[in-house]
């Protein structure tokens, strides 16, 4: 019998190693700025985790490559306990900045950070630094890009029925959806915005059926947020409905129907955080990515031909949000 337990535990350990070995660790010569990130889904999820990964790649380029800026990551850390262990490991290994990319990691970070007063931590999306001197917080004003997407969606819809596929009614997903709704209704007060929260960040099949449901209910424009929407985008494409993305640029998935995506450019916040750390401030500040500071960018899909009028309206809306002439009222 003993043999079997060995075998089973070997399989368990092996598969855990396999699932966790996305990141690569290299030893660092001095002076290099070293960042470690823990994120809930995959670096190529076309959504939340990818937005952070892409930002780090851009920062690395800006700072002069892997010799000047090194980053490692642990992806798919959907189990908060595992994430907490990874955060503690990275802090022990002396990284300059450890990023906990997911609001679910907050309470773990609150416990871990005081044990490493010389390490800087960042977490998001939130504005809460727990009043600790070595924690930065970052969040996205997702309602801004949501509003722009909503204005365009209303303009392009002919059925005046628009469908939204959301994960769980919380955080930046809720901000995005509420902003989107406000944008649609500001443009076409009589339009119908049907919202579906499917209760999961990973159930691709249910997200797809939610999209089918919207289409059956007459929607000709859809949007959605979080990584499981890849299922919904496929259904929108089959039905030739338009799609608006958020978090990462989703054009590659369905070049014919994706109009635009709100993309998080976390490098705007990261740049400031890094320069603060270099100047000796390890935390205590929170950052909001928005359209005005370039932390959020509306990226149009070059393969989708947007009419000049619609493009002008989008640009005007973006400008209005930036200069404050458009205010978004959230419920």
């Amino acid at each position: 019998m003993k043999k079997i337990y060995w075998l089973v535990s070997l399989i368990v350990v092996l598969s855990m190693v396999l699932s966790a070995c996305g990141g690569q660790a290299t030893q660092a010569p001095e002076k290099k700025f070293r960042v470690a990130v823990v994120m809930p889904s995959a670096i190529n999820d076309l959504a939340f985790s990818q937005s952070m990964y892409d930002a780090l790649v851009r920062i690395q380029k800006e700072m002069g490559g892997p010799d000047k800026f090194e980053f490692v990551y642990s992806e798919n850390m959907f189990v908060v306990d595992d994430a907490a262990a990874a955060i503690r490991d990275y802090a022990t290994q002396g990284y300059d900045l450890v990023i906990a990319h997911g609001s679910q990691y907050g309470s773990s970070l609150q416990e871990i950070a005081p044990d490493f007063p010389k390490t800087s931590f960042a977490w998001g999306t939130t504005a809460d630094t727990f009043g600790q001197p070595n924690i930065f917080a970052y969040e996205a004003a997702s309602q801004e890009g949501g509003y722009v997407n909503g204005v365009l969606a209303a303009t392009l819809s002919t059925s005046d029925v628009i469908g939204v596929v959301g994960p769980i009614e919380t955080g930046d997903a809720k901000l995005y959806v509420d902003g989107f709704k406000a944008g649609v209704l500001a443009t076409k007060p009589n339009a119908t915005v049907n919202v579906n929260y499917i209760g999961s960040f990973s159930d691709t099949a249910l997200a797809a059926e939610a999209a089918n449901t919207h289409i059956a209910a007459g929607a000709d424009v859809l949007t959605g947020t979080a990584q499981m929407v890849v299922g919904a985008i496929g259904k929108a494409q089959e039905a030739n409905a338009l799609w608006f993305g958020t978090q990462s640029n989703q054009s590659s998935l369905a070049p014919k129907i994706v109009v635009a995506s709100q993309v998080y450019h976390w490098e705007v916040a990261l740049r400031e955080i890094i320069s603060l750390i270099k100047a000796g401030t390890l935390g205590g500040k929170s950052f909001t990515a928005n359209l005005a500071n370039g932390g959020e960018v509306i990226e149009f899909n070059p393969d989708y031909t947007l009419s000049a009028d619609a493009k002008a309206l989008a640009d005007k809306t973006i400008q209005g949000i930036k200069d404050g002439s458009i205010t978004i009222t959230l419920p």
Partner: protein
Amino acid sequence: MISDLLSVTVLIGILASGIRLATPYLYAAIGETFGQKSGVLNLGVEGQMLLGSFAAFYVTFKTGNLWLGLLTAMLVGALMGLAMAYVTVNLHAQQGISGIGFYLFGLGMSELLFQSLMGSVETIQGFPKVHIPFLSDIPGIGEIFFSQNALVYGAYLLVPLAWFVLNKTTLGLKIRAVGENPDAADSLGVSVARVRYFTIILGGTLSGIAGASLSIALLNVFQQGMTSGQGFIAVALVYFGAWRPVGVLGGALLFSLVNSLQLWIQVLGIPIPSDIAVMMPYVLTILVLVATVSRVRAPSALSKPFERED
């Protein structure tokens, strides 16, 4: 607003969605039924589905051949079944624990392969909708039942087939005998090991198809962890269905229809909080399970390793 639920569009929508959503559950749960009928509890279904799902997607992505993709998924599922059979039948491992091991293996392996072979989320052209001549022209009914893709039809054809094999063939009798009383079956010359190998490999193959039905028929995309617990729900559906293919069908349909109902409830703006709405399928499944649990009995030798007494 509640009356909107009874409109033709909504009813067709609910039924058509429900039928699609139930498809992967049916393959996986019917496969699991065979295993459990022969006395083996396989908790690795989710891992088999994930690997099958990736294999089908990857092969289709590379070759453009959907059937080759499906075949690869079946093969991968069968291989995982073979390994599971070796561990549980030859090594007499504790079935629940080793099943979890296989689940984690499938989860990790599918992620690793996805990262190293694909690297990003891509889409493919999956199995097209097949409109059955004449039948698909019937208003309403046609759209619900006769305008789906090949793997959806396959899942529903599997139910009577599984019923027939389990109840009307010698093989089915052997499977049931091995699950109820392996000692007696053994003394009558039935090879317990061979029957269990067969059912576990069959279960793995069907789980592979279940995964493929997601990645190359229903969603046409592969994403890490995309089965999202469906393999575990499939195991629960076997209990729910009282180890009968028709019961499994009922459970899968009930769960899926309530799920598509809750999608419509939100779309129609019926004022139920979304958190409550998404709980509905699970709550209802538990209620039905509690209400019916007394009338059924699991196969007597379920999850017990068989060791011949010489």
